[in-house]
Structures are given as structure tokens and as C-alpha cells.
């Protein structure tokens, strides 16, 4: 048994993700569609399974319904397990009352019983808003070899951007001696990716300590990591190379989507040895009509494309009618772009309808005032009427009719 379940992964699906605006009004951030066939959570989940971690707790207290529905019994990720598998963990009531999750550390603290059930040696803490492929098993091996209490995955970022990240200063053995959250004068360019491996006994000790510390924000980055460092625990930085992107903002989500069709980006979704699993919509193949023009784009199953698509990511079951023009855009599952509509530099969320001749967003070069440019966002189930237009950077709420 020990060998099967000695690692538990806890995925912080987080709060409302308000920087994603209308896209997370009705769904938790990890359930946001990404990359044509996926949702954000498919990446950490597939990483877990491909790394041989079959027990995953997903912590959320915000709109868990769609996430629960999406994860279901875990079968698409091969996580429909008799022991372990994937579990959405919402706060619950115990004798003495109930509490919502106060911070990332408190969310794990409240689920100590869940973790203990599997009697793990190691716990991996992940977050639900990053796109990357990573073998956690190698990171755990690194953690073991260093006899570490905590190992943090780090990515080398350009020095000029380092002050936007949590920066880890390390010695020549990758041992961390300092952690600084968004330092003005970064001592290193090793940025924390928000991926932690803890020896469970240590983590439990510091979670309990933190819970009893008055005034703590109960947060990994602000409290747990600094406290452990101060206490002299062995903490190491695990160097990661490869594609990694935070999709916490509209701009970064848009950019990360277009990355899948960018041949210069190091994100290979066709790698059979590290598949990214997702729940399949069970749609027929996509159809590209006689008058359609599709270039530099990705198209998923179930689409009917009769218009023009260029530099765009078209999710499943999207309809793009004749003479419609979609450029540099992200069209999420089930959306409809009707005849002659134009969609430029936009994100159109699930099941939205852009009626005939409407225009969403604009090509920046064509703007009088390129300063005001931004990605236009149409919320799920929204409807943009015939000939209407939505300006660059504008957001239309879910279900709204314009």
C-alpha cells in the first residue's frame, strides 16, 4: 500500500479569479476552457497522473458545481480509482461550527484528515491556474535526494521581470536561503512556480503552527514558506525548464491560448508520452466547408466552419458561418459566429452567439488610438445582436444581450 499512495497532491483551485472577469463569474478558474480541447485543470491533473500520482484533492469553495461536474468520477484522467482518485473538497461543518477556507494554507489545514487517510510520505501542493507540463516524480526524487523538508519548483525568468514573482535565492546546491515576494531588488531570477513538495510530517507541523499563529494570513507564500525558512528547515529549489504560463489575467489567458498554434513556443500537445487528458465532448469530427478558409489555427471536434479563421483557437462545437471572419481570437465551446460577423483579438466564451454582421474587438493596427486597445471578452451565453459592435477591451457579462 505504501508504495501506491505515498504521494497525495492537493490542488488549490482557488477563489473567484476575479482578474478573469466574466469568464469566472459562473465557474471556478481551473474549469476555464483552454487550448481548444482542455480546461486549465487538465494540465496539473494530467501531470499528476503521468507522474504516477493517483490521489488528488481539489480545494475550492467557490462555484464547485461545474468543476465537480467536469471532474465527475475522474475517468477521463484515469482517476476513477477504488482508492484515491480525484476529490473536490469543499469546506464542511464539524462539531463546533464550520469555517470557510481562510487562505491557501488554511484550506490544506482544514483537509488534514483527508490527507492523513492516505498516510502519505509526501504532499505536492499545486495551483490551478498554470499551464505547463512537469514530471512531479522527478521533483519528488530531487526532494528525497536532498532530504528536504520542502522543495519549490523554480523557473528562471528574465531579470527585468523578476520583481513580479516570488523569488528564491539559492546556494550552489540549490538550497534556498532566502525567499522574497515581488522583491524590488531581486537577488536571483529563480521564480517560484507555485509547485511545492513537502514531507508530510513537516507540512503538518507548520500548518498546525500557522493555524495557531494570531494574525497569520494562512498563506503558503506569505506565511508557511518564510516560517519554515526562518526555522532553518532544509528547503530546495527544483529547476524547471520549459513552457510555463500563469493564466490569471485576460491578456495572459488569451496569449497562452494562441501559444498552442505558435510553432516557436515550446508546448507540444502531441507528445504521446505526456498526454494531456480532458473530458471529451463526444462530438463528431469537425467539418470545414467548401468556402471556408482556415490557416494558422487549431480547430476542435464538433465544429462547423464555413467562414474564415486565422491565428485563432477554435474550441469544440463552434459554428462559424459563411463570410464570418475570426482572427487572433479564442472561441470557446459551443459559441456561434453568424454570417458576416467579425471577431478580432477577442475571447468569446461558451455558447455565446455573435449575430450576423456584428463586430467584436478590433485589429490594433486599425485603431485610431492604439493605447486604448485590449482583448474584448464576451461572457458565456451572451448574445451580441445583429450588426452590434463590442469595443476592444470591453467585457460583456455572461448571459447578457447586447
Amino acid at each position, binding site marked *: 500500500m505504501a508504495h501506491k499512495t505515498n504521494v497525495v497532491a492537493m490542488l488549490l483551485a482557488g477563489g473567484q479569479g476575479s482578474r478573469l472577469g466574466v469568464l469566472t463569474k459562473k465557474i471556478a478558474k481551473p474549469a476555464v476552457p483552454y*487550448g*481548444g*480541447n482542455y480546461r486549465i485543470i487538465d494540465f496539473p491533473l494530467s501531470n499528476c497522473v503521468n507522474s504516477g500520482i493517483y490521489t488528488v484533492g481539489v480545494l475550492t469553495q467557490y462555484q464547485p458545481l461545474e468543476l465537480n461536474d467536469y471532474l465527475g468520477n475522474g*475517468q*477521463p484522467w484515469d482517476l476513477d480509482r477504488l482508492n484515491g482518485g480525484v476529490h473536490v473538497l469543499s469546506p464542511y461543518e464539524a462539531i463546533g461550527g464550520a469555517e470557510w477556507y481562510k487562505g491557501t494554507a488554511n484550506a490544506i489545514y482544514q483537509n488534514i484528515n483527508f490527507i492523513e487517510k492516505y498516510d502519505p510520505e509526501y504532499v505536492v501542493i499545486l495551483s490551478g491556474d498554470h499551464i505547463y507540463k512537469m514530471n512531479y516524480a522527478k521533483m519528488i526524487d530531487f526532494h528525497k535526494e536532498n532530504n528536504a523538508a520542502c522543495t519549490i519548483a523554480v523557473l528562471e525568468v528574465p531579470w527585468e521581470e523578476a520583481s513580479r514573482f516570488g523569488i528564491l535565492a539559492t546556494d550552489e546546491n540549490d538550497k534556498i536561503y532566502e525567499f522574497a515576494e515581488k522583491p524590488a531588488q531581486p537577488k536571483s531570477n529563480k521564480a517560484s512556480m507555485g509547485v511545492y513538495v513537502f514531507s508530510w510530517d513537516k507540512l503538518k507541523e507548520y500548518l498546525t503552527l500557522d493555524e495557531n499563529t494570531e494574525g497569520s494570513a494562512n498563506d503558503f507564500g506569505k506565511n508557511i514558506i518564510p516560517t519554515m525558512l526562518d526555522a532553518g528547515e532544509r528547503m530546495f529549489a527544483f529547476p524547471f525548464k520549459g513552457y510555463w504560463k500563469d493564466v490569471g489575467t485576460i491578456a495572459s489567458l488569451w496569449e497562452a491560448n494562441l501559444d*498552442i*498554434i505558435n510553432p516557436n513556443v515550446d508546448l507540444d*500537445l*502531441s507528445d504521446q508520452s505526456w*498526454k*494531456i*487528458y*480532458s473530458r*471529451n465532448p*463526444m*462530438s*463528431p*469530427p*469537425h*467539418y*470545414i*466547408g*467548401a*468556402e*471556408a*478558409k*482556415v*490557416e*494558422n*489555427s*487549431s*480547430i*476542435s*471536434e464538433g465544429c*462547423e466552419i464555413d467562414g474564415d479563421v486565422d491565428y485563432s*483557437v*477554435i*474550441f469544440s462545437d463552434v459554428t462559424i458561418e459563411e463570410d464570418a471572419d475570426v482572427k487572433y481570437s479564442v472561441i470557446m465551446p459551443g459559441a456561434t459566429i453568424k454570417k458576416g460577423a467579425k471577431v478580432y483579438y477577442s475571447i468569446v466564451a461558451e455558447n455565446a452567439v455573435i449575430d450576423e454582421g456584428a463586430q467584436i474587438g478590433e485589429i490594433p493596427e486599425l485603431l485610431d488610438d492604439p493605447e486604448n486597445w485590449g482583448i474584448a471578452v464576451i461572457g458565456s451565453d451572451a448574445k451580441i445582436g445583429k450588426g452590434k459592435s463590442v469595443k476592444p477591451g470591453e467585457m460583456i457579462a455572461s448571459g447578457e444581450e447586447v
Partner: protein
Amino acid sequence: MNGKKVLGMMFANIHEEALDSLTAMRTMGSVPFCSRYRLIDFPLSNMVESGITKIGVITNANFQSLMDHVGTGKPWDLSRKNDGLFILPPFNIGTATMWGNRIDAIYGNKGFLEQSTQNYVVLSDCNNVLSLNYQDLFDAHEASGADITIVGVKAPMPDKIGSILCFDKVDEDGRILEASLDKKDEGEVFRSVNIILMKKYLLDSLVTAAHSKNEISFQRYIIMSNLNTLNIHAYDATESFVGTISSLQAYYDVSMKLLEKENRAKLFSKDAPIYTKERDDMPSLYGPDAKLNNSLVADGCIINGTVENSIIFKGTKVEEDAVVKNSILMQDGYVGRNAKLNCVIADKDVNIKDGVELSGAATFPVTLSKGTRI
């Protein structure tokens, strides 16, 4: 339908001799179809969507590809503690590796029938691509008071395949008064698609009687000879898309029909999804020089060349300046630069090298068997 009522029995092997190399290493049920499916997916998904919870799949010795495809039954939610999916190869009758005929096969699986708690059985072949609501079929069967209900379509006779039952005279209630086998008729006939519903005990007694007399034709001795004694009804499924895969040519023609929107709309309804085993491919990527039109493409493809009037399966790669027209390329194929294909059916894993040109005719598509390298 209360899934506890009707047992599904699928014949995965029937007529596979008609498809030449496509069935050399696989059953009829596991023939790839329409970019991402296998033929068995259609009746299997329709049955599951109609609430049928136990399905036996009768197959012969070549069932490995079928087992690989349906596996545990999970994609159809048939991996169950009670009921679920059962592969029924001819393993219990000495050295036989083939069921002799349909009557033999049912007789050989009497134990399976008996152990099932359902009172009705629906038999189905795998070589008719259609979308059928088995609940509606069941309701019609109950309402008509029929002993046996056979699904039929009004369509021309398919080529090549033998033993096609035609309903020559049907009364206004739907009862079949006269029927014939292998009618010579150029026009539209009302013919069976071999989906047959009846009570389990009736099937059992008819098959047991036929078996004891060494009869071999289900159509002739169980259906035709009982038209007077039993109330046998026809259920008209003409409004569905129906394609009978009776030959390689028919395979090609039926596939190409799905390039028409109204045919896809009939076969793939949102209410009755067709399930299949998933591979978790990425979305298909279209390069800067891709030119696609009037084509169906599954996930996992990389298209940099020209594709017209074609059906492209998962994981196919078409390189720059390659031209694929009027063709069917099954999964994981590769078409090199400047290669030109016209009216080709390429099985799985076919590799067309740079500059190779191959051309058949719409009435005589060139067929490349699995793994061919040219």
C-alpha cells in the same frame, strides 16, 4: 426505457467478408468510420442512450481489435457491476473458432440469454450506420402488440451482400404480410437492417427449434416461415440517416455522404451522442499554407497541405504542398510533401512518401491496407 427490460445482442462479425482488407485483421464492428468512430459505436451508443444496460457482443476468433476498442466498456458507461458489456467469442464449443451462422451463434449463447434478467432481446448487426432510438422501437413494438418487430428502411438494395430481407407487403398497422430475400430491384425497396426486437423466450424457442432442425438461415426459417403464425411488424427507420456497408464501394459512398450537412445532422444528434474510445488527442492544427474544403477532420491532425472532399481520421499529418482529394485517410496516416492522392482509402498507419501520386476513381477507390508504406 427501463434498461432492465431489454437485452442487446450485437453481431460484430456478420458480413465482414464484404470489406476485403478492411476486415482482414478486424471484425466488422471495429472497422474505422467517419474520422473517429468504429462501426460498432453507432448501435452501441444508441442502445446505451436508449437505456439498455446489458449488451452481449457476438464475435468470432478475430476479436482482439474489438476487445482493444470496446475494452472495459467504459466509454459507453458499460463497465458495470451488474449488467454491462460482454464479449461473446465462440470459446466453449471445442475447437470451433467461428460461429457457423446466426442461429448457431444465438444457440451457443443460450446460457448468456438465460442468465440475463431482461425479458426482451434486441438483435443488431454492425454494418448499418444509422441512428436509432431503441426506446421508440420498443414503444412501437408494445403498442402494436407484435411478436417480432424488425427495423427496416426504404432504400435501394445494397450491392454484394446476400440475404437481404425485403418487406414486400406490409399492412396499414405495420404487419409484414409478404417478404422475400435478395430481391432484384433497381429502385427503392423496404428492406430489413437486421435490428430485430422480440421477447427473450420467443427468440429462445425459435432458435432452439431451428437449431434442432439444423436450419442455418435466420431470415428464412425464423422470419419468413413464421409470417403467418406470428405477428411480425416492420418499424420504418427511413427518416434516420441509413448507410448499409455492404462492400468497399459502399463503405466509400456511405462515408462520403457524411460530407453533407443534413446527413450529419441526422446521424449525430445532440440528444444521442455517439460514444467511442477516446485517445486524448490535441486539437487539429492548420498551418499557414493549409487549404481545406468540404472535409471532415478529427482531432490530432496536422494539416499543412490541401485537403478536399475528404475524411481525415485522428493523428493524420498532411505535409506542405501535398494534395488529398476525395479520399479517406484512417488514423495516424502520413502524406509527404508534394504527394497527391485522389479517391484513395488508406487504412491505419499508411505512409505516403514525398511526391508519390495515387489516383483511383469515385467508382473504384484505391485501397491501401494497414501499415502500407509507399
